[in-house]
């Protein structure tokens, strides 16, 4: 009963796709489309060459790409997207060194009632500047973010940048007293997940997912340390769940581990490719959908971040 009650009316992300290279093109490996079956059908019949469409652009330019407003753009599935009410998309390439493993694409619908933020931060002149982001109804926060920069080690983006590891932050709106934090608080943004997006060529990109209570990007976040991947396992180092509370373990408690290929996180660890699943039994805490994004460093999966709705 409680599970049904606390389900949000609308999720911030409507579609999540994983595109993988097959020869010279990107093809759809898996995706979550909810009720948008027509868009799903259109997507399954599409493939992208390097440089083509949004996934192909993320591949060719070796960088995360935010696209807002598809009309007249390089977006290939304009018709289907318009019919599905999708207006914005973010493509995140997953590179292992120079090799593209996959492109994760999330698509969002425009809605005055949905608040959240998916941001791409890029290094410029020694600080991180907002490359672009999708904010839904959080217009003031969007404006503030466009005028904020993060030096190394400061804030969620600057922290991720210098630590080269995903970071999960709590109480975004209350703990920080900076302008951006104040605005985040007003926008109802509570939890922030930041992760590095390693790309060939040494440029620094940081992706942040900022989630609001009412229209969350996710209700459960997990960060797995996979630097024991050589030993074929990952350890849950941080996480927060609307249903189970904090997911981290204290020093005296046993670690939560998964082995490669064990469960969905284990699949991301084993393949090195993002995983999107929905409606399968055994999803943690009874969630509907789950996305797991592996981060590669020095030729191996170093971390996996996962979020559940």
């Amino acid at each position, binding site marked *: 009963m409680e599970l049904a009650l606390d389900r949000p009316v609308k999720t911030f992300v409507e579609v999540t796709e994983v595109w993988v290279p097959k020869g010279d093109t990107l093809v759809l490996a898996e995706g979550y489309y909810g009720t948008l079956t027509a868009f799903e059908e259109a997507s399954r019949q599409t493939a992208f060459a390097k440089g083509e469409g949004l996934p192909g652009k993320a591949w060719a330019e070796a960088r995360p790409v935010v696209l807002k407003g598809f009309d007249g753009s390089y977006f290939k599935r304009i018709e289907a997207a318009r019919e599905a009410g999708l207006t914005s998309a973010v493509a995140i390439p997953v590179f292992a060194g120079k090799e593209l493993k996959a492109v994760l694409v999330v698509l969002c619908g425009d809605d005055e009632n949905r608040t959240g933020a998916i941001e791409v931060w890029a290094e410029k002149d020694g600080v991180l500047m907002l490359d672009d982001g999708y904010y839904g109804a959080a217009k003031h926060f969007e404006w503030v973010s466009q005028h904020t920069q993060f030096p190394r080690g400061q804030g969620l983006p600057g922290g991720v940048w210098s*630590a080269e590891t995903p970071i999960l*932050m709590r109480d975004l709106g209350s703990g920080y*007293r900076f302008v951006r934090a104040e605005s985040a608080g007003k926008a109802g943004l509570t939890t922030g997940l930041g992760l590095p997006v390693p790309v060939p060529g040494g440029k620094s990109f940081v992706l942040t997912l900022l989630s609001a209570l009412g229209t969350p990007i996710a209700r459960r976040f997990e960060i797995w340390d996979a630097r024991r991947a050589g030993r074929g396992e990952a350890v849950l180092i941080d996480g927060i769940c609307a249903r189970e509370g904090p997911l981290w373990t204290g020093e005296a408690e046993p670690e939560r581990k998964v082995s490669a290929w064990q469960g969905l996180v284990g699949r991301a660890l084993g393949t090195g490719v993002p995983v999107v699943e929905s409606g399968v039994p055994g999803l943690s805490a009874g969630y509907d959908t789950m996305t797991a994004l592996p981060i590669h460093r020095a030729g191996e999966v170093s971390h996996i971040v996962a979020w559940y709705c």
Partner: protein
Amino acid sequence: MQKLVVIGAGMASGRVLEHLRDTAPDAFEITLFNAEPRGNYNRIMLSPVLSGEKSYEEIVTHDDGWYGAGKVNCRFGEKVISIDRDRKVVVGEKGEVSYDKLIIGTGSSPFIIPLPGHDKPGVVAYRDLEDTNAMIEAAGKPGSRAVVIGGGLLGLEAAAGLRLRGMDVTVLHIMGHLMERQLDEAAGYLLKKDLEKRGIDVLLRASTKEIRGRDRVEDVLLEDGTVLPADIVVMAVGIRPSVQLAKDAGLDCGRAIIVDAQMQTSDPAIYAVGECVEFDGNIFGLVAPLYDQAKVLARSLLGEVDAFAMRELSTKLKVTGCDLFSAGDFAEGEGREDIVFRDPARGVYKRLVIEEDRLVGAVMYGDTGDGNWYFGLIKDGTDVSAMRETLIFGPAYQGGASADPLAAVAALPDDAEICGCNGVCKGDIVSAIEAGAGDLGAIRATTKASASCGTCTGLVEQVLAVTLGDDFQMPAAQPVCGCTDLTHEDVRRLIKAQELKSQPAVWQELGWKTPNGCHVCRPAVNFYLLADWPLDYQDDPQSRFVNERNHANIQKDGTYSVMPRMWGGMTNAQELRAIADAADKYNAVVKVTGGQRIDLLGIKKEDLPAIWSDMNDAGMVSGHAYTKGLRTVKTCVGSDWCRFGTQDSTGLGIILEKRLWGSWTPHKVKLGVSGCPRNCAEATCKDVGIICVDSGYQIGVGGAAGMDVKEVERLHDARTEEETIEWTVAFVQLYREHAKYLDRAYKWIAKVGLDWVRDTLADDAERAALVERFDISQSVYQKDPWAERASPEAARHFKPLADLTLEAAE
């Protein structure tokens, strides 16, 4: 039911209550006092709360509901005034409670250094939630600055948290490397680098003098005069057990409350647990032993047999992305063996310490995934002799090789410059190889890459290896020593390219195989660092040969020789008198040297500061007869006195000696200035020999008169004295910047070619830049070592640490 009173709701006492609830929920009627107006939270997780990575709610371990369910009578926010052991009552602010058993868990309080200004508003400790909130509050002001005093676990976690919150943070640490109790130098270096990457400034060997400000903290003044503006000062230098209550009650206390292995104090009805106890001379700050104590205490209360024992501890730093691990004992003791592994590309350092086939200590940075496995081996005392060879690779080692050293070169883009001297890119070399150049000689002939100064030779060979694959036979380059596979040229190039400015940086980033080098590489690396980074690097006397460390030549009988400087070989009656007096006073043998100086031989080490002081008093400074540096400038009498003299050779010699003295060079440097081609100063067999002629000055370089005898080769003909000085200084600096340590100038010139030296120096801008860099270096190093060491403080080091001959006689 027995009455149990607990003073202090902390992690240890909380754990005791948990054990009691789990095993004997009805054994005691419990009253819990806590001075803080709240229950118990996981204090060691305050750092992530400070950084924003956890919320306070997440770290609460025992809230009111928990105590309520356990029927604990909570008296929170109430201080305990005293313990009356005769009546067996605890006196609280709001009344007494009697006990059958009492547990003291008063914990510890932060240690505050009583610096001037330590009590100003804005100075916070880092211990509890109030401190944490005070720091979060301070971080709220945009552009605010924090100074953290203490580079241990707590201080660094505070610094990282405040930085994440947006503050400008400086960490002051009094020791030579961070977390010196848990880390060795190499790991400390990596940690410092990691923190600096986060924008945190770290000042080592920083001693705080005063915290200043009118109404509240405004800045921090260091002993060396540095002033650091600060909105808050976090003092995180350690803790001291809170034992006043126990002391007042007459319980036995040392540094803390003394307990036995059952956690019982000197009063059988009273137990103590946590950071306020002392067991077997130890006090406790980490959480693992506290939990052990809690379990033992709970069992003891219930009449069960158990005993607390000291265990090995491991340390992790709660700063996201700083992966360090240390466990056991890696610094002290005899009969030990180190295994060191470094992967500079990934910033990984691992060191294992083995004693009698057992792992006794481990320090790791960057890759700590195997930490708990090593910790297990340490705790269990496992015999590791069978896995000795592969131990460093961890439990997953399956015989795989480490990273390919050529991969980095293979990854370079074609437009990456390989040879800076001749502007040759990787692509040029690859093209030459594809056109048929198959070895280093052919590459040099076709592209000029590595044909000049030669420091890129290793790189060119690697490009050959990458391009040709198995067809290329890599010549066996001579590494500096067994500590590294790199050549001197590689080390010099990498020190500059990677801006390595300390010895631990070189050891780590260049993958040294030993913890701290050896007698071969240390002096070389020390020289390269001080030559390349005169302002950043601090000369390390312990990396110098004895002569340079003691500023005197050790003789075969262990005595020393002392040779004062005589500028250009000129002296006077007063100096000679002082030398004669010193010879008498210190019983010295006197010798006139080949370099126109007077040497006093047979001086005892403990007399050195005194004789130096005497020489200083007569106006003389060290002659550096012992250094890889400028030795002497030999001159003839020149135009002042000699009928053949063409220029003032003596005057030029004095100017050159005054300009060049005190500079460190790869090997010794001797100069000669002759007033005419008759060459009475024998200038043509010196490292730099100047012959004065009617039209000006002939500058020759690369002479020698040792095991090899060589005549100088002409570098340049200068018209004026100024030009001669400029070229000479620039030449010495070029030699300092490029030569291999212990290569005399002639050997270096043979390697790089006189043409390259001449072409480089002929470039006006380059020559001026060399002179400027030389002068910068001299601003640091042109100091009389005798004067610096004649002070009583410095002189102490020339005396024995102790003299036990008298005590032995008693």
